[in-house]
């Protein structure tokens, strides 16, 4: 196991009380595994990604542990985490557009960044990695504003993985891109793993179809908890959790027409995480909910690697 997250609880402090964005999530990540993390907005997927690298001031760990390569990550100690960031855990942020310093040419920016981590700049290696994602070396002598959105995204990907981190967190990296750029970026991520630049990866997204193409395992989250986790093919072909099923049914695909087959959304909205109701969090929207759902459903392993948190399976 490369990463082991157990019973992780992360709360956001607000004036009205703690928002339980992440409420007891347990999962593991094997060496070389790409985990796709999907769910609606507010389900805690970005919170999970963020807590593994940097918690912001409003976030607080309320319990649980994170172990990476046998060492526990001090996720709530901002300073102590510095030793891990970039070398052990690295992040590709959602908005690569604003992740680059606009006043520096890229060569200088990368140099400064590496120096701050005490690593020398290996220009040859940097250029080789850039060419692998289809960036010409001249890009280094440009300002970020001179690059297109897809180029910036790929540049950030190269920078994030320069020190060969063990775990890479890609937070909605393709959401702002066009389909053809999206494909190039997704393939570049797969290339990173093949070449061993990163050991394992968590790919946070709301796009199940895209995740299916690059992830080995998909984890579906709902309202701060794990709903279902299984190999990518199983989630797409034989989902067991009612939420996963409804989510997949709501996906329009090319070729599906309103006139032929009418898709349905999921009625209702997720519960407030300020004071979530007891029991299964999907209960209010679930078509098959019963009396037992008033109690928290345990996460059961149906077949090896297929975990579902639902009483009805």
């Amino acid at each position, binding site marked *: 196991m490369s990463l082991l997250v157990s019973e992780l609880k992360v709360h956001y402090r607000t004036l009205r009380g703690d928002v339980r964005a992440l409420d007891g999530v347990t999962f593991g990540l094997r060496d070389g595994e790409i985990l796709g993390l999907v769910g609606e907005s507010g389900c805690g997927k970005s919170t999970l990604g963020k807590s593994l690298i940097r918690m912001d001031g409003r976030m607080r760990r309320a319990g649980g542990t994170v172990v990476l390569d046998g060492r526990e990550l001090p996720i709530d100690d901002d300073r102590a985490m510095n030793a891990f960031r970039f070398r052990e855990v690295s992040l590709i942020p959602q908005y690569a557009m604003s992740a680059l310093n606009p006043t520096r040419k890229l060569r200088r920016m990368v140099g400064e960044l590496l120096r701050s981590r005490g690593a020398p700049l290996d220009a040859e290696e940097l250029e080789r990695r850039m060419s692998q994602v289809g960036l010409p070396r001249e890009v280094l002598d440009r300002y970020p504003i001179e690059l297109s959105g897809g180029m910036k995204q790929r540049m950030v990907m190269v920078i994030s993985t320069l020190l060969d981190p063990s775990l890479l967190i890609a937070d909605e990296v393709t959401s702002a891109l066009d389909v053809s750029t999206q494909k190039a970026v997704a393939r570049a991520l797969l290339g990173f793993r093949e070449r061993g630049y990163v050991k394992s990866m968590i790919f946070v997204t709301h796009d199940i*179809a895209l995740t299916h193409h690059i992830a080995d395992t998909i984890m579906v989250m709902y309202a701060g908890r794990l709903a279902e986790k299984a190999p990518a093919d199983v989630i797409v072909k034989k989902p067991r959790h009612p939420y996963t099923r409804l989510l997949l049914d709501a996906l329009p695909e090319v070729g599906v027409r309103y006139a032929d087959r009418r898709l349905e959304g999921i009625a209702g909205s997720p519960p407030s995480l300020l004071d979530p109701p007891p029991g299964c969090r999907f209960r209010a929207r679930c078509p098959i909910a019963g009396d037992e759902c008033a109690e928290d459903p345990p996460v059961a392993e149906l077949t090896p690697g297929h975990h579902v948190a639902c009483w009805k399976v």
Partner: protein
Amino acid sequence: MLKLRDVTKEFRVGAFGGRSVRAVKGVNFEVAPGEVVSLIGESGSGKSTLGRMILGLNPVTSGSITFDDLPVRAGKEYYRRVQGIFQDPFSSFNPVFKADRVFGMIKETYHPAVPAAEWAGRVDSALRDVRLNPDQVLGKYPHQLSGGQLQRLLIARALLLDIKLLVADEITSMLDASTRIDVLNLLAELKARGLGVLYITHDLSLGSYLAERTVVLRRGSVVEMGPTERVFGDPLHPYTRELLSAVPRLHEAWDDPTPVDDCPYHREGGSGGLFEAGPGHLVACAELETCVRP
């Protein structure tokens, strides 16, 4: 109803506007009542610029846009019939006004003579049309509502004006998968009542779900347009094929586009403009910009 004829848009860029960029080049298409036309293209293809020109927010450089045979003129009369909804519902509302104030403003501007009680009834039925519970949304601030609710409020607002055409610019791209489809189904219901919709998107699967006709835009020019099932089922232009092959699908692996061995445009001896490959199915030259053949 809506007709675009050789619409071209140039933007002045650079210091003192010394250079110009042609964002839209000679675009022709029509939207009929009760028809959904999806306008598909990547960022920078000019799809939003077209939407803004149709709404009268930007002037056209050359060519013409007519609505019911009259040129587009931004103003009360035009907006009574044509409305636009944009991508970000959160910035479409004034955060210090309660959501229903939007409806109040519509009444003041467009229907000042309607008695208050009757107006309340109309607001109520418009909200029910978009499947919102009036008690749940009226009297709330925008931050208290979800993105899907806000987007539906904007559609309800447009309905109060009795519009004929809705320009929907990426209206579902900020919504979750579970609410996105509700907004699309709603548009389909409104279409059945005779509303024309220009659905601008970069998401091909959403575009194909609703639209009867699809227009594919690349760098400001139409490369392919026609009935949706033809454009998606039998794409002729290499760019359309490339786009379609890049869409992630659930049950199929990503494949590379099948190469086009010969340009149908030239095979059939097309010259100038778009070539009609089938009934209503128009396609541009495969090498639109670099083509040297006559």
